[in-house]
Structures are given as C-alpha cells and as structure tokens.
C-alpha cells in the first residue's frame, strides 16, 4: 500500500490528460475541440491547486502523514495542467503569434490575470526539488507562499469569464476561501 500510493496517484492524475489526448485523436472533443482542451486543462489546474493546498490542513486535522508525501506531486500536476492550458491557448487561439498574443493579453484582462497566476507558479515548480529546498532553507517556505496569490488569481481568472451563471465559480471560490481561511486562522492562533 505504502509503495503503491505515489504511483497510483501519479497514474490517476494523468487520466484527464490521457482522456483529452484520446479525444483529440478519436474526435471526441466536439465541434470546438480547442475550447474543450483549454477549459478542461484550466479546470484541472485549479483542482490540483486546491488539492495541493488541502494537504497540510488534512495532515494537521487528521494527524496522518501520508498526504504530505503527495504534496509535491500534486503541486507539480497543477503546474503541468496550467502549462498545457497556457500552451493550448497559445497554440489554438494565437498560433504562437507574438502580436496576437499581446493583443489578446491587452484586450482580455482575464487572460492577463491567468497568465500572471502561471508566472507565480513557475518559480515554485523550478524550486520543487529536495536540493533546491535545502539550498533555499527558510526562504523556500517564504517563496512557496506565492501559491496563495496564484490561487486567488486563478479564481479571479475563472470568475471573470462567467456570463450568467456563477455557480461553478462559486464552488471553486468557496473551496479556495476555506483553504486560505484555515491558514489564516491557524497562523493567528500560533502567533498568540
């Protein structure tokens, strides 16, 4: 069980990507496959971000240690899906044309917000190795607090695109608020 945990979660985390890949070649992504890929990868990036941030509250509340062993991997999957999301946008909506990309960034502010969230995640992914953790010491924890503004930006990125029904954005927002709120309260208690 112990040995299987990580590979099992790794395989499960790849499933949404595998499904999209299969759909892309089997023609199962509908008349607007580019949009399907972009929506799905964006949602999975946000879900993995929330899962990553749920790890330490879960550990504290339950006392289990095993969730901690998954945190890095879940965080990297959040970054992985964010990368596929961003790359799909560049490929399908802008054709990697820098002019078009700048135009989209300028005209669609929610895209800028989403791009900013990705930029905040980038140094976290780069410094995710044990070696970097040791090298950065106390600064590693400080640096990795960037995940909180990244999560907030990702939620804004989603909510900003709502046309009429804010139900889905609300659900993600409530989870984000719970996870961030927990840390705020826990932090206050430990300072007292």
């Amino acid at each position, binding site marked *: 069980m112990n040995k299987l945990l990580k590979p099992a979660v790794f395989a499960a985390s790849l499933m949404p990507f595998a499904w999209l890949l299969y759909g892309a070649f089997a023609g199962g992504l509908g008349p*607007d*496959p*580019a949009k399907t890929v972009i929506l799905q990868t964006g949602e999975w990036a946000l879900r993995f971000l929330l899962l990553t941030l749920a790890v330490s509250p879960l550990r504290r509340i339950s006392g289990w240690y095993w969730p901690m062993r998954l945190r890095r991997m879940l965080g990297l999957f959040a970054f992985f899906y964010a990368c596929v999301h961003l790359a799909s946008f560049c490929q399908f909506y802008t*054709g990697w044309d820098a002019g078009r990309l700048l*135009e989209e960034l300028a*005209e669609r502010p929610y895209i800028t917000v989403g791009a900013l969230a990705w930029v905040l995640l980038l140094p976290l992914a780069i410094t995710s190795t044990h070696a970097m953790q040791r090298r950065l010491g106390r600064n590693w924890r400080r640096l990795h607090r960037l995940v909180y503004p990244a999560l907030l930006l990702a939620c804004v990125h989603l909510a900003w695109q709502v046309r009429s029904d804010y139900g889905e954005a*609300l659900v993600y927002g409530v989870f984000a608020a719970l996870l961030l709120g927990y840390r705020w309260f826990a932090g206050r208690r430990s300072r007292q």
Partner: protein
Amino acid sequence: MPGRFKVPGIPSSEITPESVYLRRRQFIQAAGAIAAPGVLGLSAGASAAYVPGETALEYAPAAKGPLGYYTDEALTPRRDAASYNNFYEFGTGKTDPAAYAHEMTVDPWSIEVDGEVAKPGKLHLEDILSRYPLEERIYRLRCVEAWSMVIPWVGFPLSALLAEFQPTSKARYVAFRTLYRKGEMRGTRSFTSSLDWPYREGLRLDEAMHPLTLLAVGNYGKTLPNQHGAPLRLVVPWKYGYKSIKSIVRITLTEKQPATSWNMSQPREYGFYSNVNPNVDHPRWSQKHERRLPGSLFKPNRIETLMFNGYEEQVASLYAGMDLKKHY
C-alpha cells in the same frame, strides 16, 4: 396574403388541462401513432406527425443573388450544430441543450401575438406549418462568444406573420418571449443564474420587417431539434446569436423599446442592437475574429469577423446616421 387570416376559435389545447396535454406526446408514442414521419409544409394538417428534428419539411431552395439568402461557405455539419448550443434554459454548458432539451414539450404549441396590432390572436403550430410557404436560407451564425457556424435554416420571413396581425401606427418595436416551463427546463431552476426568465428579446420594427429576418421552423431540411429552439425560433443573421430567440411563445408589438434578457443582466456588455461589429469589442474580449466551427486541434479555423456578419450590403441602411459604438 392580406385578408387570409381569420381569428381562430377555441382550440382544444385551451380546454384541455395543461398536465394532460403536456403528456400528449408520450400518449401518442405509446399508441404507436408516429409510425412514419410524414411530410409537413404545405400539406400539413393537425394529423401530420410532428417530431422535432426528425420530420422532413417541404421548402423552396435558398435563392442565390444579392439578397444574402445564400452563401457557398461550407455548412457546419448537422451533428456539430446540434451538439454545440447556447440555450441557457437547459444549462450553460455547450452540450447541455443537446442532453436536456428533449425534456421540453413542443407539441402542442401556440404563439400569442398581441400589443400594438389590429388583430391580436393566437397561432397554433399546425397553422404556422401549413400557412406559410417555407424556404431555405443559408446563413452565417455569429455568436457573441466569438465562434460561428453556417446553417441552412428552413422558415419564412417574420414580416409575413407580422403583416397578418396588422401592426398599428404606434408599433415601433417587436418583443419576443421564449417558453418558460420550469419543470421541463432545468437551467431555469439554477439558483446562481443572473438571467431573468422567461428569456426575452426584441427588434426594432424595421429590423423585424427586413427580408433577412426569418422565423425558422427547421434546419438541415427537417423540423428543428429542441436544442435549436423547436418548434419556432427567430434567425437574425446580422446580429449576435442570442438575439435569435428560441422556442417563441409570444410576440408583442410595442411603442417603446422592450427589455431584453442579456441587456437586463449585463447592460454594459450586451446592448439592445447587438449587431455583429468587429470594431466594437465586448468589454471582456475582442470581436475582431471568430472561430468557424467545426474546428480541429490542428486547424483552428480562425477568421476575421465581418461588419454586420457579412450582411452589410443588405442591412447597413437600417442604421444610417447611428453611432454604432454607442448603440452596440
């Protein structure tokens, strides 16, 4: 046309309790009455089987020429058009209408025409299908979300219907309403939607009387599938898709500009006119380009959006002297 309309008597749907007539379709199916879809159109009577999306229609082919009734651009395949829809009464996802619109009862159906008309009245689905000569129109459809399709509609000009009810001299606008039946429309049961039901749309009378403005009863040669707005919907090809209101139950001629759903929900983003205009961006995104569907991952099909969706020659005169940045 003029003079042929007579005020209908009391139809059976008015004296049958709603709960009973809403089950009529199931009853007919159980009785095996819809053995073969007949041909509606000129010959249709109350006895002809009406099956949304299935019954073949009789119609004249789209006329080529400068009127804009026809385009030789590649048609969006029927399957794609029927599986990618915005019909928020059934959910906000693109595949929700295809999944849930079958829950809507469309037969029996009637439309009430009232307001500033000399002869207010009610039209029944059978009358609509038999009274008006049907024709095909191949139109571009440009959604405000920056995707587009090319769809062969079957219908008749809205002007033909309006003329029969004789708009009064006070009539300046036309207001439309979609069916609102909570029990059959799961999207209207959402607690987090900012749209107010029933869905409402409107046109200026001269826009409504324009020959391009179509009341569609079918597409791809057959009756409309529910997700496309069966049994009867508006198609205004030079405006963003949401102006082409679906599953219409009421048409009211008014003196004042009517309230419209998206405009009520987000007035800064969705104006009353909503003409396709690449020079006026949606506040949250650009309207300069569109994705012509179906696209593929390897060929995104991104094309430039045309003024009035390419119908500038036909409709620009309606807006002569108007500031379209202000009247978006």
